[in-house]
């Protein structure tokens, strides 16, 4: 912004009147192409502010040479960030206008916990499914949309039965794999 500050007729004295300050604030928000206050503002990765229609036209004019009009850094339609001020909601949605302004990108914050699949109840089933590999395929293939029954509470007869069954399936699976290897 050295150019802009240079161009000022005279620097306002420190503690000057509010009007001068307002004027300077406005200049800070001028589009670098039309030199007017930026509307449908977007900012490039190199930090330069433009009206989206102005920048769009600039990029259209030189499709082979997409550079920032201020610092000539590489620039592209995908790599500009729209600025949504507070007053923006009162205006019509800029994306309805031609040319459409690229949308902002929202990335969800990363979750703090580990892999959710290895939680307490459900994960128990899942690790068995993987262990009994060929049969796990069947269960997951044929049970479309059915919710898996939750594990039987520890200590009951059903729990013992399930443990026994899964052990049998595990051995069957191991034998099956050995048969595949040695046959």
């Amino acid at each position, binding site marked *: 912004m050295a150019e802009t500050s240079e*161009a000022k007729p005279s620097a306002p004295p420190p503690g000057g009147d509010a009007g001068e300050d307002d004027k300077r604030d406005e200049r800070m928000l001028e589009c670098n192409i039309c*030199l007017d206050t930026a509307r449908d503002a977007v900012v490039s990765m190199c930090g330069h502010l433009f009206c989206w229609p102005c920048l769009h036209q600039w990029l259209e004019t030189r499709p082979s040479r997409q550079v920032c009009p201020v610092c000539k850094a590489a620039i592209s339609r995908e790599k500009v960030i729209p600025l949504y001020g507070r007053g923006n909601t009162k205006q019509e949605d800029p994306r309805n206008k031609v040319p459409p302004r690229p949308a902002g990108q929202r990335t969800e914050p990363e979750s703090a916990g580990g892999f959710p699949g290895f939680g307490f109840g459900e994960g128990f089933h899942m690790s068995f499914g993987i262990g009994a590999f060929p049969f796990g395929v069947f269960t997951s293939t044929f049970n479309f949309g059915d919710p898996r029954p939750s594990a039987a509470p520890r200590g009951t007869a059903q729990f013992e039965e399930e443990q026994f069954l899964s052990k049998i399936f595990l051995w069957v699976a191991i034998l099956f794999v050995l048969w595949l290897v040695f046959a």
Partner: protein
Amino acid sequence: MANIAAKRIKREFKEVMNSEEVAGGYIKLALVNDSWTELQGTIVGPPDTPYEGGTFQLEIKVPETYPFNPPKIRFVTKIWHPNVSSVTGAICLDILKDQWAAALTLRTVLLSIQALLSAAEAGDPQDAVVAKQYRESQQLFLLTARHWTNVYAGGPSAIWEFDQKVQRLLDMGIDEHEARVALSHYDWELERATEQLFS
């Protein structure tokens, strides 16, 4: 004229008028017509160059597509410089061609042209004859440029020897400017210039 171009030129005009460079008398800008499509720029020759003390007029034509395309600028005042045509005044400056950027303004362009007068780029000449002289006989180039500045741009230092030679050709009934061009092209060798003019 497209709305954005006219609007921007008006803003730039104001910016130039309030700039330090105008206040200091280094550059000037004036309107030629009411439609803001044509302007007249003025730059003074930078110090420590053969252009020092001269005032150079520039023709500025603003295209419909401004600022997405550069303004068309040429020297109206005749000037002896490797990157300016001594015939048409066309300027070879990258920012007026493929290196144009929409954030450049008339002020920055005028200052760039002024800077070009301080630092010629002989590797990318507009006028091959001038560029050759610039590379091969620097001293003669400086004198010729100073002479042109004196004659066409109101520069202070006249080169007496060159004036005499131009006068000799003038006496033979040759147009003054034509005589000066011929002499400048032939390193101020009167015989060769005469030969060329009468061939």
